[in-house]
């Protein structure tokens, strides 16, 4: 495959190199910091030991309610599909996992604030019955995704209205903020990588870019409308990568499939080459999934670890240092947020470009 056109643009190659660099450094720091925090938390076995790992994992994980402050949180709907039918109730019925909820078909318990399990008649969790219960709850991440979908539709339909209202005129206001980004996606991501057939893929690329970006940004907000770790959740990045996988392979032309199934190598290498190429088909979107998940999660872990330092050391004196680092990390995360959206979109465009490329 020919990557030259990708590196032709100095701007893009610079960003890409920078992105790879920050990715490694962020991931490394995240790793060391979280292990440090974990080890520290193990040592402080006081009356009420502060478990940084638990706090951090709770913050970056999903939840059945949207925590506001203190004991206050927004209850979210729980939707369960059981072998006896649907169950709808609010997560507040669990009272933060303190009470079981008697549903229409079963009694449910919130285990570790993470899982909903069926409680048997003896008062213990019935794992066998729980297997028949499918959890389609509107969790915090789902709610955050809905919020971002609403925001995106609102923002971009208003921008689209501005285009209709000011037809043929120069962009104005919010429109002029969005237009360069759209043009960037078109002229620096889609066109150089896909070629003249780029227009078909523009909606997907733009949607992926802005969806990832807005969720990255919302994830950085520590209070209600944000605080959900959407793009740092592997289920979400899995869906995005899966869509890329499907789009790339549906649009793959005969050259793409020939490259995979009948590569230009001596025939006796086929038993090695074809499996390798097939692994490549999967590994490309797989890398997309892991990259976005790891970057965003790492950023959240670092910030939360730095905050946790204050509680681990139980000292207000550490707060200025900690906050300085948090501020730095937040600014870096702003960059990483747009960078990861850019890289995901760029690589998607690159993979699509490889699949639709005509060979002469």
């Amino acid at each position, binding site marked *: 495959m020919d990557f030259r056109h990708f590196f032709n643009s100095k701007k893009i190659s610079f960003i890409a190199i920078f992105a790879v660099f920050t990715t490694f450094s962020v991931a490394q720091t995240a790793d060391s910091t979280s292990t440090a925090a974990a080890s520290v938390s193990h040592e402080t076995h006081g009356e009420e030991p502060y478990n940084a790992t638990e706090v951090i*994992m709770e913050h970056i994980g999903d939840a059945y309610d949207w925590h506001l402050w203190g004991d206050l949180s927004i209850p979210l709907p729980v939707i369960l599909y059981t072998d006896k039918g649907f169950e709808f109730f609010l997560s507040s019925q669990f009272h933060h996992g303190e009470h079981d909820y008697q549903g229409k078909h079963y009694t449910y318990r919130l285990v570790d604030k993470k899982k909903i399990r069926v409680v048997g008649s003896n008062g213990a969790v019935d794992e066998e019955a729980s297997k028949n219960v*499918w959890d*389609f709850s509107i969790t915090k991440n*789902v709610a955050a995704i809905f919020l971002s979908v609403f925001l995106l539709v609102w923002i971009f339909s208003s921008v689209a209205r501005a*285009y209709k209202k000011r037809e043929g005129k120069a962009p104005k206001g919010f429109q002029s903020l969005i237009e360069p980004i759209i043009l960037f996606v078109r002229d620096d991501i889609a066109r150089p990588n896909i070629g003249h057939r780029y227009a078909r893929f523009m909606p997907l690329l*733009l*949607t992926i870019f802005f*969806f990832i970006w807005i969720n990255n940004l919302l994830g950085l907000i520590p209070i209600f409308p944000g605080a959900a770790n959407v793009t740092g959740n592997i*289920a979400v990045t899995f869906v995005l990568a899966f869509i890329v996988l499907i789009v790339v392979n549906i649009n793959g032309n005969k050259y793409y499939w020939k490259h995979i199934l009948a590569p230009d190598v001596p025939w006796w290498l086929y038993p090695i080459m074809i499996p390798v190429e097939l692994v490549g088909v999967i590994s490309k979107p797989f890398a997309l999934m892991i990259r976005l998940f790891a970057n965003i999660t790492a950023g959240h872990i670092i910030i939360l670890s730095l905050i946790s330092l204050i509680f681990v050391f139980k000292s207000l004196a550490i707060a200025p240092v900690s906050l300085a680092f948090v501020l730095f990390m937040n600014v870096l995360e702003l960059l990483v947020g747009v960078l990861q959206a850019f890289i995901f979109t760029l690589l998607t465009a690159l993979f699509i470009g490889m699949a639709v490329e005509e060979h002469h």
Partner: protein
Amino acid sequence: MNFDIGNPSYGLVFWTLIAFFLLLFLLKKFAWKPIMEAIGERERSIEDALASAEKAKEEMARLTNENEQLLKAARAERDIILKEAKELKDQLVADAKVQAQAEGAKLIEQARKEIDDQKKKALVEVKNQVSSLSLDIARKVLQKEFENEKQQETLVSDLLKDVKLN
């Protein structure tokens, strides 16, 4: 450690899929299509405007060039006309001069002839006058001379005295 991020929940996968496709559909219909069309339209119109500006510029240059050519031609023509006029004038002046000279010469010639004629006539007149006068005078002198005999004889004798017969 309840690290369940690596254990994706199918519920989240399900809702993310639905939400993403809903987002893709809505944005495609209500945002990307009108926006991309509007941007494309504007780019085309800007390109057209630039092209027509370029064309106008070329047209302008062509017109200017043409004007210059015209001006140049007009100037050349004017020069030619002026030159011709000057030549004509010179010719006329020269012709007039020649003619005047010829005329003058002719007049002078005529005058001279007239003068000569008059002179001749006058001379003839004078001659006639002179001859008649001289005849008269001679007659009168002779008449006077022959009135006195003695004087005549003296004269003759004087004349004869001078004459020496050899």
